[in-house]
Every structure is written in C-alpha cells, then in structure tokens.
C-alpha cells in the first residue's frame, strides 16, 4: 500500500512547526509518529499536501516541578513513557494506559501527543473506499451512516487509551499557537463531535501534558476491555482515581472517565459525586458502577452492541473500583 504524494517539512523547533502550520493552512497536517495518520493517508481518507513532521525533534524526559506535578513532553513515545521510572512512581495509571496501546512496535513510534489527537474511528470509515460505488458517509462529507442504517449522525468513536487515564488524573494540556502558549484542562480538548473531535485548530501544536500529583492517599486503576486481549483498540476502557481521606476508608473525591464508547472520552460526573464522602464497600462499587453505565450511553461500535457494552462497562467499572481500592498508597513525595 502506497502513500499519496506530499511535501515533507522537518522544522527545527515546535515554534517553527506551529508557524509553518499556520502558513500552509488547511493544506498542511502535523505528524508525530505517523501510526494514526499514515494508515488514513494510505486509505485515502485524508490527503494533506504538506506534512510538518515533529519526528526529528528530541523529547524532554518527564520532570517533576517544585509543586510535585509531573510534566510529560507530548513528543515522547508511548514506549519511553511506559518505561519511565518517574512516571511509574508518580502516576502508574498513565504507565499502564500507555502500555496498553497497540503493539510494541507502534508504542516505539507513536507519541503521547499523537495518541491524544488521533482521529475517531469506525469500521466503515477506516478502510479504502476506492472500489465502493456508494454515497460517502458523514465523515467523508456525505449525509449518511453505514454503521447504523438510517443513522442521522456519525457514530465514529474516539479510541485513545491514554486520554481517559489523563482526564481522570486531572491533567492539563499545553497548546502552542503561533502567537501564544495556553493551557487547557485535557477534557476540554475534546468536542464530543465525531466530525471534528478536537477543540484545537489546525495551526496549534500540543506540546506538554501536566499532571497534578497531590500529596494524599490515592488509589488508581485502568481497565481496557478487548475481545482478543492482544493488540486491539479498546471495546471500552475505564480509568478510575480515588482520592482518600487520611483514614484510608473514606473517599474524599473520585474521578471516573470512560473511553472508546463515545465521540470523545466521557467523564462520569454522577458516579463521581455518588462516590465522594462515602466509605468504600462492595455495595457502593456496585451502585456507582450502575450509575456510570446509566449516564454514559455507550455508542455501539466495531460489532459491539450498546447493550453488550453497557453490561461490560458495569463489570469493568466495578473491577476498576476494587482494584483501585486495593492499591491505595501515599504519594511518594508525602512525608506521611
């Protein structure tokens, strides 16, 4: 399978990349590892004339700032992220999510930034359309959906594994535009619209992720549900962070994010509220898991029906709670 023609530009800095993106406008696209973009270009789903490549730029290793917060370079490969000792100590949840993406080879190529900015997917859209003599679907500028016949909207799902983990960790993203650098909570990066999944514009570059690491008792868990268990996009994923009172049994605050079953990652706010201030117990986990399912409305996708996904989501959320509760530990920076 061949890539279509394009012009390839290797900027010497992120600032230059952002300037070049602005200059070339909609003709240009940013590329990091290319593991999401190149397959789409080979299928003919997108045809940029110019590729601005971040591949040659070095990634800064993760650092901890004076507040104890973790800074991760968006250009870091998922393999380096998964094996970084600093990340493992500060936020094992992120290491786990990074390690669950695709395969060893893809983790050595794919970056955190590319993972967070990947396109939404659907089994109809993500293939070559050369020999199909039918009207295009919504995502190819048509007005129908082949996945849900007579569907009035696009049902492509956002399948990043690191996004739910980072949103549950309360991460924020640093965005570089030609004239400014700004920060936004990572969950605000996503629009919830499958046709335009990201809120950032074409001239903007995601450069860094900042993860707050409070000095408190915390338990975390990441579950990725797939059919085969090997390299596979998630049927669904759920990332849970439980911040505990000092006694270790009362939950002070919870963050729950569900991935791969919607047009973007979904925060389960009702579930989070129901968990806060409660004593952890099996019954509570069951109740909150049901609440999470009721507020999530999973999209049917890749052969999974909505009913099946709802049933799996309840089980996986409950498991995530139990696992997080077992792993409650103090932040290594905390004197105790």
């Amino acid at each position: 399978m061949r890539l279509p023609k394009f012009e390839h530009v290797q900027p010497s800095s992120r600032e230059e990349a952002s300037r070049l993106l602005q200059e070339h406008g909609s003709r240009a696209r940013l590329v990091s590892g290319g593991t999401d973009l190149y397959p789409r270009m080979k299928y003919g789903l997108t045809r940029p004339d110019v590729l601005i490549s971040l591949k040659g730029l070095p990634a800064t290793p993760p650092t901890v700032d004076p507040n104890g917060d973790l800074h991760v370079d968006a250009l870091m490969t998922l393999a380096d992220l998964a094996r970084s000792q600093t990340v493992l100590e500060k936020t094992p949840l992120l290491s786990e999510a990074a390690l669950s993406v695709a395969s060893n080879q893809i983790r050595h190529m794919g970056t955190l930034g590319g993972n967070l900015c990947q396109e939404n997917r659907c089994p109809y859209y993500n293939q070559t359309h050369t020999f199909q003599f039918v009207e295009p679907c919504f995502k190819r500028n048509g007005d129908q959906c082949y996945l849900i016949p007579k569907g009035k909207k696009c049902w492509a799902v956002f399948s990043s594994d690191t996004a739910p983990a980072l949103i549950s960790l309360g991460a924020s993203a640093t965005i570089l535009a030609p004239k400014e650098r700004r920060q936004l909570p990572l969950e605000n990066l996503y629009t919830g619209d499958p046709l335009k999944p990201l809120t950032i514009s074409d001239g903007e570059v995601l450069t860094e992720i900042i993860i707050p690491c409070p000095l408190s008792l915390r338990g975390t868990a990441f579950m990725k549900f797939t059919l085969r268990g090997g390299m596979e996009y998630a049927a669904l994923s759920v990332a849970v962070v439980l911040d505990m009172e000092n006694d270790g049994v009362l939950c002070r605050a919870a963050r729950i994010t569900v991935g791969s079953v919607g047009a973007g990652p979904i925060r389960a706010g009702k579930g989070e509220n129901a968990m806060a201030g409660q004593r952890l117990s099996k019954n509570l986990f069951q109740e909150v898991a049901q609440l999470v399912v009721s507020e999530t409305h999973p999209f049917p996708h890749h052969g999974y029906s909505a009913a099946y996904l709802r049933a799996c989501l309840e089980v996986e959320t409950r498991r995530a709670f139990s696992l997080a509760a077992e792993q409650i530990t103090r932040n290594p920076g905390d004197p105790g």
Partner: protein
Amino acid sequence: MKQIIELSVNGESSEFAVEPQETLLEALRDRMGLTGTKEGCGTGECGSCTVLIGGKPILSCLTLAVECHKRDIVTIEGIGDGNDLSPVQQAFVDCGAIQCGFCTSGMVLSSEVLLKENPNPQEKDIYKALEGNLCRCTGYNKIIEAVHKASEQMVTEQE
C-alpha cells in the same frame, strides 16, 4: 521533490534520492533488494515489516525513508546470513515455528529485542513483546516455544 538520504542498513551505508512519500519498507525492498522484510498489511496491523532502528523495533511500512537519514537500521538480513543463524533463528527452525515464513522475519526481530532486554522472559512477556506480530499459519504455540528455547540457549551460552 526528491531528497538525497543516506541509509545505514546492517552496517553498510548507501545514498539514495527518494520521494518524501516513499516508506522505509519500499526503500529496503525495491531499492536495496532486501526482500526479507515483508509487507503484509501496509497499515500497522501485522508486524511483518518490522525492522530495528537504533535497536528498537518499528514498522517500516509506517516510517518514511526520508526520516531515516543516517539512522542505524537492522533488517532480518543483518541477523544471520542463511548459514550462520542467530540462536533465535536456530530455535525457530528447531521448534518448527515457521510454516509459510511470511511473518518470520518480524517475529525473529521482535524476539531478538525482547531477549536482549529481558534474557529470561516469562510467557506473558513473550505474548506482550509479540502482540504486534501476526502469524496466520503456526497457531503461535511453536513460536512461543522457540522464544523460550532461544532464551535458554542464550542463558547457557553466557554461563
């Protein structure tokens, strides 16, 4: 517009003028005649195009040749020459871990990296290291067996 690049493959450097859209896979197979690297899917799903860049396993079907300028590349041809096999290759032969052979170069390279990083892998480590390499023939059991065997062999050799 073509760009001149220098590719260092299996210790030998050569220069080529390549189009930006040319993948490393195409450069290796069509320009250098190194056909041990295979194209299965071309879209990142099968791992048969695996090569090592700077010792790390990557997919040559999703890597641009222009981005490999002066990088150290190792293909299956750099692992053994057909007579002199590496312990991993020998174990694949001994265990019958090859049928049609299309996945084999990728499987061997992924296993080489695994054993270098973790000379004594558990079964779950082998699964994880090879999850991006599909085999449509062997049913995987013999491949897993071969990696175990190569690991034992390499550990005894070191002692």
